[in-house]
């Protein structure tokens, strides 16, 4: 299985009080044990993760260390802002009525032929997901952990 992680998955992982924390921990364990064969995240989503964690905790140092951890501790492929990524993201944002960063998750999934893994915590986005074009979207709340 190949997944492109949305910001919400890693925000949930790094914040133990978050609703999806346990689910996100399971996903990270499956990435580290190679049960999920490939996981990626775009640089755009890594930035979004940093500022959401800082806003949620009001702790810049913790947000920095979480970003550092994604880059250095986890076996997650960080997708660069290459020409292919930028043009995919531009197109997806043009056709999808969801946020720029959520489209960045879709662009990462599209480029790596992965499924885009989101959390249902993003209810506002969720309402619009029915009209989304691009790669397949799955939700961590429905995730089949028996890989």
């Amino acid at each position: 299985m190949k997944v492109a992680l949305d910001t919400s998955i890693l925000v949930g992982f790094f914040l133990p009080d978050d609703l999806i924390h346990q689910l996100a921990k399971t996903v990270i364990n499956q990435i580290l044990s190679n049960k999920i064969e490939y996981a990626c995240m775009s640089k755009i989503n890594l930035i979004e993760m940093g500022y959401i964690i800082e806003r949620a905790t009001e702790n810049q140092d913790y947000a920095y260390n979480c970003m550092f951890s994604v880059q250095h501790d986890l076996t997650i492929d960080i997708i660069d802002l290459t020409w292919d990524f930028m043009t995919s993201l531009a197109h997806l944002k043009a056709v999808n009525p969801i946020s720029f960063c959520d489209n960045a998750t879709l662009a990462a999934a599209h480029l790596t032929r992965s499924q885009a893994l989101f959390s249902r915590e993003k209810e506002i986005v969720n309402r619009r997901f029915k009209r989304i074009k691009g790669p397949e979207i799955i939700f961590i709340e429905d995730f089949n952990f028996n890989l």
Partner: protein
Amino acid sequence: MVKKLDDTVVISSIRISKEMSKKLELIAKRQGISKTELIRRALESYLPQFIELRPNSAEEVLNKVKLRTGFIPKIKKSIKSIYQEIYETENL
């Protein structure tokens, strides 16, 4: 007889003071090993502190982040309200 070195072995030469050389010689003699072996053992015990291995589990990752920061902060603002801010107020 010339012993053929394994291709994973490299020869390194180091410059040390006479005093340190004497100490090495003394300790090696006491332990019944060569100076080279003593240096190798010393490096093996000294170097691991600088080599950070990748964590094997989610818990280890969180512990590393906790160690770097000193603690794991509590959520002061709900994630849901932050997403609402981003999508509705900031229109991103």
